[in-house]
């Protein structure tokens, strides 16, 4: 994954934002995750149309977080979601 990678939710997941926190289920694995506010916003933003750079820009606009910190945290979070097969990634070649 890099900043150009486009990220979307695995279609097998189901999720809702409840009380500001994302509750996500991956029925095939029986996994249920509850995310904190920032992670929930990332989850909302990964809709299959945005790349990671666009997600990061939005997070930095909405939350008081230094860009370097946001980048580290978002990559860590997306790696975890990818390992759990909760997201799908699409590499996009730079022009």
């Amino acid at each position, binding site marked *: 994954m890099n900043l150009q990678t486009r990220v979307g939710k695995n279609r097998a997941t189901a999720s809702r934002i409840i009380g500001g926190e994302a509750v996500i*289920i991956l*029925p095939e694995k029986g996994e249920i995750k509850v995310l904190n506010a920032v992670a929930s916003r990332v989850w909302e933003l990964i809709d299959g149309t945005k790349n990671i750079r666009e997600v990061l820009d939005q997070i930095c606009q909405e939350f008081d977080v230094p860009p370097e910190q946001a980048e580290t945290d978002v990559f860590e979070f997306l790696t975890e979601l990818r390992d759990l097969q909760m997201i799908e990634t699409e590499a996009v070649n730079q022009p």
Partner: protein
Amino acid sequence: MRLESELIPDGIRQTFGQFETASAAMLTFRIEITSESRFLRFQQSPNTPYPVELKIDGERLALCSPDFQGTYDAALRKGGLLMGSQAKTDERVYLGNLQNYARIVAGYELLHAGGLMIHSAGIVAGQTCAALFGPSGSGKTTSTLLARESHPIINDDLLLLTLRENTVLSHPHPFHGADCRQNYYGDALPVSGFYRLKKADHDSIQPLTKSQAVSSILSSVPFFSAALGDLVLGRVEQLVERVPVFELYFKKDIGFLSLLEAGVSS
């Protein structure tokens, strides 16, 4: 519910008889016993619940477990259940197969009818149902054993819930094993609270946030399937909008019952 064959074992009549009515059947199951001894073959770890493989294709369900295979067509509301040879000689196996099959079909139909089935004990407290849930070993059976001296039990393992505008109703049902401590067969009762059980050295309750409530109840919904994930999640969300959800810390005595009764009166 109607039991139409004279060949139905006594244990089945005992379990389902309370629910027998003269009205036409909503769902029809045909049961056969084959000479095959086992169906689904895989290693079962001691901590996993009884394995049932469920596949959903449109409105058709296919089920497979070590002891039976089943199909169900929701459009026709008809299903077939094929049991292994052990069911011929062991009534408990026959009952277990029928229960496992019927509760999955009932859970599927209930979900599509606007309700939900959850792994939870139901204790009658002040004309309401207190729903006690949690993973295996959290104390559902212990709590019903303690409560049954003074409180009727709707079920010690599984609740069938329907949603009304502002309430959730818990319905008595026959989908349980021969050892179930059910002794309430009256009308459906409103659920006063969902209580996630935690064994402790004291009795107390703590409210859960909405997201904690949804995720903890989701963990108690049986027969998850990718095809039903969104429907189940939406239904659980509706459930926690209508009924408060708590963490119930309890020690192995009847003290927790006064907390349930306090929940009813508040």
